[in-house]
């Protein structure tokens, strides 16, 4: 079981330490870890499970903060990693993002949360809704009140009723003036286009996000018009397995507030909404680059925030790039970023320019990969459609809202 959790800032400073068992872990392990990180130039390059001379370390990095946990005995490594991810989720939910300052500013809350989330190295309460009831998140009202009265307790005096109920994810009997439930389909498109311009892989990773504000103990049933296209699925614990197994229907008692009902994958899609065609020709020490972007398959809605990014190779000395639409910038870490925004109707955006190669190098033999980003509101590119959402056990008719959004995930074009 986990023996200790450390939170490290992006400069390697130990911001917080929480010992979990009697086998204390000295914080010098963090120095060891940071040495490794520095030697690798980047903590994301270190494997998430490391055998240090004294401990096994699990580590994840979120927005510059490294969450580090140690153990000395056999335990499922994914349990450690998943738990750290959960801690990171809860913290960023509580603190509205993660960074060094916000953690230091709210270190008491972080301690209280950690203490509640894990006991003796084994996770105790990890359900965000329950945690919210036990430890109040910092918000403006409580802050101001705290300043004025000097009394700022954020620890609840009573045990949330949900810990005893058979739906431990739902706080007991919440009351809402307006009963409403929103279902969002958030999709990410992963695609790989190889050097020959062939679509090697194109798939959608999607999540059904539900935001429910319903009183009492409602029972929801969600069905899709075309569940057969779903290749893989994973569910929130609230989803009952049987109805899905037999009829592909999602039946559940929702937690109160925002949660991820399910995630799914639709594989083997045939086309992408936009095309990106990079071309590199190199000769005699210079390289001509041109990138064309355009709409291939109009999804019917506007394609927003289109970006193209690529890493300038180390062998490139200088770059002179210009575009007929959007802005081109070269960032400090030699990343070239071209943000296009919306693709105009009348012309195809293009980026062109020359790259100067290292002296002595005639032509390029390695080629960068272009990462593409875009956003389409109102469309789920997988084609998944919500058929019905039935709500039982609710006195008044609630408001139901549906939305969809598709973004680029790992969308890569090789050149």
């Amino acid at each position, binding site marked *: *079981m986990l023996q200790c959790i450390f939170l490290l800032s992006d400069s390697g400073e*130990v911001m917080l*330490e929480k010992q979990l*068992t009697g*086998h204390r872990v000295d*914080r*010098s392990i963090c120095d*060891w870890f940071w040495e490794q990180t520095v030697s690798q130039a980047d903590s994301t*390059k270190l*494997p*998430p*499970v490391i*055998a*240090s*001379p*004294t401990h096994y370390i699990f580590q*994840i990095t979120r927005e510059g903060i490294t969450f580090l946990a140690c153990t*000395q*005995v*056999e335990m499922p490594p*994914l*349990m450690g*990693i998943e738990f750290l*991810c959960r801690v990171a989720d809860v913290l960023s939910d509580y603190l509205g993002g993660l960074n060094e300052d916000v953690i*230091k*500013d709210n*270190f*008491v*809350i972080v*301690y209280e949360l950690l203490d509640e989330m894990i*006991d003796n190295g084994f*996770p*105790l309460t*990890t359900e965000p809704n329950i945690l919210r009831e036990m430890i109040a998140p*910092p918000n*403006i009202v409580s*802050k101001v009140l705290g*300043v004025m009265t*000097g009394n700022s*307790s954020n620890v*609840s*005096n009573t*045990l949330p009723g949900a*810990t*005893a109920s058979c739906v431990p994810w739902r706080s007991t009997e919440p009351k809402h003036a307006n009963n409403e439930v929103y279902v969002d389909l958030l999709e990410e498109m*992963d695609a790989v286009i*190889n*050097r020959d311009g062939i679509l*090697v*892989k194109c798939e959608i990773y999607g999540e059904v996000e539900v935001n429910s504000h319903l009183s009492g103990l409602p029972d929801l049933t969600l069905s899709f018009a075309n569940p057969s296209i779903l290749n*893989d699925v*994973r*569910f929130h*614990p609230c989803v009952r*397995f049987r109805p899905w197994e037999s009829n592909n229907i999602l039946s559940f008692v929702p937690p109160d507030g925002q949660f991820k009902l399910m995630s799914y*994958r639709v594989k083997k899609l045939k086309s992408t909404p936009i095309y990106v065609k990079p071309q590199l020709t190199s000769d005699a020490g210079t390289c001509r680059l041109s990138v064309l972007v355009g709409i291939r398959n109009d999804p019917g809605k506007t394609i927003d925030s289109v970006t193209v990014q690529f*890493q300038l190779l180390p*062998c490139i000395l200088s770059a002179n790039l210009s575009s007929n639409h959007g802005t081109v910038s070269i960032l400090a870490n030699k990343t070239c970023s071209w943000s296009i925004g919306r693709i105009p109707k009348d012309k195809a955006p293009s980026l062109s320019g020359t790259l100067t190669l*290292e002296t002595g190098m005639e032509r390029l033999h390695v080629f960068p990969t272009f990462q593409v980003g875009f956003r389409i509101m109102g469309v789920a590119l997988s084609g998944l459609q919500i058929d019905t959402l039935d709500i039982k056990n609710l006195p008044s008719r609630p408001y139901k809202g549906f939305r969809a959004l598709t973004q680029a995930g790992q969308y890569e074009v*090789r050149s």
Partner: protein
Amino acid sequence: MFPQFGATAETLSKASTLVFRIGTDAHLYDDPEDANIAPLLDSKFDSEKCEALKRLLALIAQGVDVSNFFPQVVKNVASQSLEVKKLVYLYLLHYAEKRPNEALLSINCFQKDLGDPNPLVRAWALRAMAGIRLLVIAPIVLVAVEKCARDPSVYVRKCAANALPKLHDLRIEENTPALEEIVGILLNDHSPGVVGAAAAAFTSVCPNNLSLIGRNYRRLCEALPDVEEWGQILLIEILLRFVIAKHGLVQESIMFQSCCTESSQSEKDGSDVNSAFEEDNGDTGCDFMSELVNMVSRCYIEGPDEYLSRLSYINEVSSGLDRSCFMSGRSNDDVKMLLQCTSPLLWSHNSAVVLAAAGVHWIMAPREDVKRIVKPLLFLLRSSHASKYVVLCNIQVFAKAMPFFFAPHFEDFFICSSESYQIKALKLEILSSIAMDSSISSIFQEFQDYIRDPDRRFAADTVAAIGLCAQRLPKVANICLEGLLALTREEYLIGDFVCMDEETNILIQAIMSIEAILKQDPPAHEKVIVQLVRSLDSIKVPAARAIIIWIIGEYNTIGEIIPRMLTTVLTYLARCFASEAQETKLQILNTAVKVLLCAKGKDLWTFKSVLSYVLELAKCDLNYDVRDRAHILKELMSCYLGQDLEEETDCLPRKDIPQILAECIFRGQRKPMSPEPINFRFYLPGSLSQIVLHAAPGYEPLPKPCSLLSNDLHQRLNVVGSGEGATNSDSYETDDPDRLSQSANEESTSGYSSQNSISGSSGSDVPGSESEDDDNVDPLIRFSDVGISNKKQNGVSRSGSDSMEELMSKQTLESWLDEQPSLSDPNLSKQSQVRRSSARISIGDIGGRVKPKIYGLLDPTNGNGLRVNYSFSSEISSMSPQLVCVELIFENCSAESMSKVLLVDEESNKGLDSADQSLVATER
């Protein structure tokens, strides 16, 4: 500023400093010591106490030792404010072990709180009380846990379950039965939340007491989907272990298939058990595969260390897995139930649960059903980066053993440039092991892109993967060779201008891949060799040249064209010899000799002159390796070089020793490569050991199939911890008190339990006087002790042991329970017969039955611990000239006394002439 709210001066200053970070605790973290903490702690206002405690917490967070406030903080445990309580508990748990006496002051308060009507207060009190871990209060805590295990609140019962491992950690033997009973009660709880926590308690308190599970098996299976995700992870594993211990493995599963082939083959061979190497000789891909699966299943059950050592050294031990270990999964309800209740968990949103459930199906499910784990596993790859790595490590094993399952999904292993290098490397390895004739063309298409990737290390790995694919699928060998050859030509262009390390690595890797493919069927690829030789002039990288030159020498007799080229090539090599790098020079020498040995007819004279020319050059080389090689070769080849052409014919009959040697060394027919000796280590899917590839402390293979039926009683004994000895591995591992703190770099002892281990008691060793050793023990290793408290105990005579006991702290004494250093002189005679002699020498303190206590070796975190210095002494062992004396000096740098130092020599898996020693010494 806020007079109307009656603000004090303090809140005013607070407000003014916090214009930007209103209401947060930022100022406390930045400047924890800007207020005087002590008086605040004694304040009668909760808010001031809170502030003081927060300041202390900030100091703890920053790594400052503030344990000196302990007495004042403890007083506040009686506070009615829950926030103060919580903060006090946080502080208390951090320092309780450092200040045990003061911590005792809080006990009364906890006991009062345990009777509180608020379940939250009860739960916190129990958590804090169990968390301070004092031996003295263990009985009180036990009573409290017993009470809370029957509490009406689910939350309190859950905390009671979590308190059990804390109590168990104190290692008080007489508590064990009580703890197990509570585990039983909690496992029987009707709330799934409690069951999950109870499963965690079971894993740490009594993982081998599977009879506890037997009572509730069905209920646990039914409750499994409702248990909290974290509990599910552990419960799945417990249920799996139970089913295997009770019913054995499943006939229809993957694990069975392999064992069946083995037993049938062993019948055929007429031997009891054939080693894997024997079986390998009749190799085909399929055999290799089933061999691999067989290994996997053996490793799961026996633990890889034990399995591998048995495999390589002892053939007489019969295999534990015969048909009696198997039962039909279709007719067995327990198995069906396990599979049924774990299969929906493959949809869990917690990747650890999915992997655990997949592990069960992998081991227990009928062959045709195992496929259902494939898609959920692949879907896990889309979760966080960190879990992706762990999942890939596990898929790698599955894919190696059962490539057919993953073969249709090869596209999932295509690589994104944004992934980390480890993930890329894993994916490449998986791709090369699941490539099939149908998918290989798409995979190669991808590989071509990867070779152009800016990450050159990854590109080199891709080249290696191409070689692996070609070896697995001989059909594509030709395409691969063409591609690789084209690459060598291309990379040359690059390598010439930009002589970067990474580029040369790719070139070397390409040549190595070619060489590996050639090895499989040299005659078929004659043209490739010719082309390689032609490109010799353009390839400048020494390592690559060396390999090509080796290829020339190795295959100089093959085909039609190569023998005709040899004269030209050799003259070319001789001409550029002087300008070559060292490794290339060595290969040129070798090749010249090989060619000469195989040569016939008119070329012989040319070859001779070439060889003597390069030998002359080499003799004057700057590098002594080259010079040495030249001298040796000159001696070996003297008869060839000295002879005249006419004498050549009678050369054969009167071979002298150098000649035979030369023939042996350079013309020795290469044995067909047996598939690389399989010594992969497989650990249970989803375990930490599988990721770090060594047995982590506390790792246990699956229980012996069907062991539960016969030895329920035995189980009992194990748990109580009696009968511990070298022969009883289970209890040895699990009841080991300080196994938890064993340092990671120490190998687990699990491998040693059933080897012929010899427990003996040796006499006291005096440094440097080996002959004084007790006569019935082989002095494989000599010890010497530094440190006053570490005076060695003579195992036989009890001299001094009484006085030593007084020196020991009470605490250590209490944990030193129940180990009988076994004196097994009869065993000693075996030692000389067994090649792998693994000696466990207990230099025992005979006084008590002692439990092994293991300390981290030279714990770098605090610098105290056991320091070990070792040196190889030049004197020859009196036992055998083949043994080497190692002098180990143990130094106890910590304040406590140490005992049961375990010394394990792992290196000798190769087993040449080094004896294996595992050595347990009890010393003080």
